[in-house]
């Protein structure tokens, strides 16, 4: 990161830039992972129906296990990672972390310095949809940010 004069001014909380879209809700076609979940439920229901009627164990069970793994994959934590950039000002990056994540200045500066010295910092981790929204906001501020699956 770039620091003219190395001066970091005092900052405070600012208004968050609005109007971000959620990829999960805007896709025209069903997401493959959601499709898998719907399919797994259908297969599971079918399997149960067969169980009730015939009293047998069906071959659908392994498929259900496979699709359940997909559900688990959805729950894996996603990380919001910010990467070093020689152009963005250190004070600007700190301000963005405060605005986007609501972090106090000290915490925002710690992350900024981690980006500066180590090349990257994990700013947040959790479910995919909020992680996507955070990355969108960071891109709105022109920071180099990525969404990474820890699975």
């Amino acid at each position, binding site marked *: 990161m*770039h620091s003219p004069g190395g001066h970091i001014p005092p900052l405070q909380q600012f208004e968050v830039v609005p109007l971000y879209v959620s990829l999960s809700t805007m896709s025209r076609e069903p997401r493959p992972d959601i499709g898998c979940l719907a399919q797994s439920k259908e297969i599971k229901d079918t399997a149960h129906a067969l169980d009730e009627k015939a009293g047998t164990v069906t071959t659908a069970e392994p498929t259900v296990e496979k699709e359940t793994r997909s559900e688990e994959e959805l729950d894996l934590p996603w990380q919001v990672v910010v990467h070093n950039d020689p*152009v963005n000002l250190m004070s600007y990056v700190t*301000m963005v972390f405060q605005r986007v994540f609501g972090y106090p200045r000290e915490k925002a500066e710690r992350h900024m310095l981690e980006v500066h010295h180590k090349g990257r910092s994990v700013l947040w981790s959790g479910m995919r949809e909020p992680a996507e929204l955070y990355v969108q906001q960071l891109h709105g501020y*022109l920071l180099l940010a*990525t969404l990474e699956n820890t699975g």
Partner: protein
Amino acid sequence: MEICRRDDQIELFELDPFLAELLRQIPASADPNGMPAAEQRIFSSPTNGKEPVLCAEWKQYVEPELRRLFQTATQTVAADLEQLNGNEKSLANRSLRIPSKHADAWLSALNQARLVIAAKNDFTESELSDQIRSPIGSRRDLSLFQINFYGFLQEFILRELGG
């Protein structure tokens, strides 16, 4: 050039024609069109290359929103810069008043311009850290000066926003 916060606006005065011209160039400098390296930087990948579906959806749904967001900021800045129009050939110093409510637009447009200029010139980190390079002897030197001048303005706006 002098810069100060006065009431609800940031005022730049005693702007010499050279600095006024650099300010006038902000909207054009922020435009990455026709420069693949700059486009790639402004609209960077949301993943580390492992999520092709997400990347495709991002291009389709998020990029247009970001493009609109960036355009809105540069349009706001361009409108403020109209104060400098009409006396381009005069050697007299001039003033520019930036309403505080436009500060976010200025931060964004200045950042866009700095990133596009850096990508266009492929500046190294050591070049970007060289704050005292002078005199301006080439187009490349001028571009570096432009990045530093815009960075100075960003720092001032950030400081003023922080109270």
